[in-house]
């Protein structure tokens, strides 16, 4: 499935903190036109071990979460079933920058793109 290589993902930091993991069901999908954004929710310091599975190999599912209901129209495919099963760190401190998804019967390592953000609240003095 060539479509697997068109998927981009974004790891979004909330207010500059790690988004360690939790690929929690439908909440991770930010449904916009391509590229798809996966918003990973911070669970405060629960590092995952690296899951390093070559494409085409049978994955050892790890913290499997489903990305459900990705609109197929965004990919030009009739069916797209993606399951995030690995996102990890090395040595508990470094992000290895890999997100593995189970897509169309294959394990895919998506290239990393971290999107970080920081916010400040504002008020009007009246």
């Amino acid at each position, binding site marked *: 499935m060539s479509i697997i290589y068109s998927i981009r993902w974004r790891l979004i930091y909330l207010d500059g903190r790690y988004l360690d993991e939790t690929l929690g069901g439908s909440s991770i999908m930010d449904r916009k036109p391509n590229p798809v954004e996966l918003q990973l929710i911070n669970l405060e310091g629960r590092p995952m071990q690296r899951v390093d599975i070559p494409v085409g190999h049978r994955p050892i599912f790890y913290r499997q979460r489903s990305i459900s209901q990705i609109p197929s129209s965004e990919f030009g495919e009739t069916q797209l079933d993606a399951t995030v099963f690995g996102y990890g760190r090395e040595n508990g401190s470094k992000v290895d920058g890999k997100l593995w998804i189970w897509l169309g019967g294959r394990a895919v390592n998506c290239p990393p793109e*971290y999107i970080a*953000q920081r916010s*400040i609240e504002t008020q*009007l003095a*009246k």
Partner: protein
Amino acid sequence: MANTVVIRQGTGAPTGTWATVTAVKWNRVDDASGTTPVPTPTATGTNFSFVKSFQPDITVDGGLTMTDIRVGKVAAEATGGTKLWHRTDQTTYVQASAAPTATGDNNTTAPIVPHTLNNTNVTALGLIGGPPSVYAAGPFTGTGRKGNIVMICLGVDATNTTAGTTVATPTLRWTWTEA
């Protein structure tokens, strides 16, 4: 490891004291929390808050490179008669010592912000979800403040009816890529 990043606001002169801010009031004083109000015009026109200068600052270098910095508001202004204006094309800081000159229409004409004494490149602040254009492409590495000075002020026009208290205005958000 992700960089640790804070948002700094510059105040004072000449080069500014850059304090971490998590909340800012649109006021008429050169700080983040003063309550000197922005008066509502009694006839058609817009009064402005002091211009606030911001920059993201990498305080702990996680070894990643920061690129493509954007800034925007999380949601549209919910309070009638208010509008956020911004300018991102300047690299040097100028202390805010007065509010931009009032304009004669209701938040249509952009305010004149410091540096060049014109309102060139002063535009309404867009929604971060837009997303807005990248204002600082980078790449940026290491610690310290990064990118151009982001100057933002709030215009209060004659259609505004709030008074007597502080009024919530949109959250500002910076986004960037780390890789």
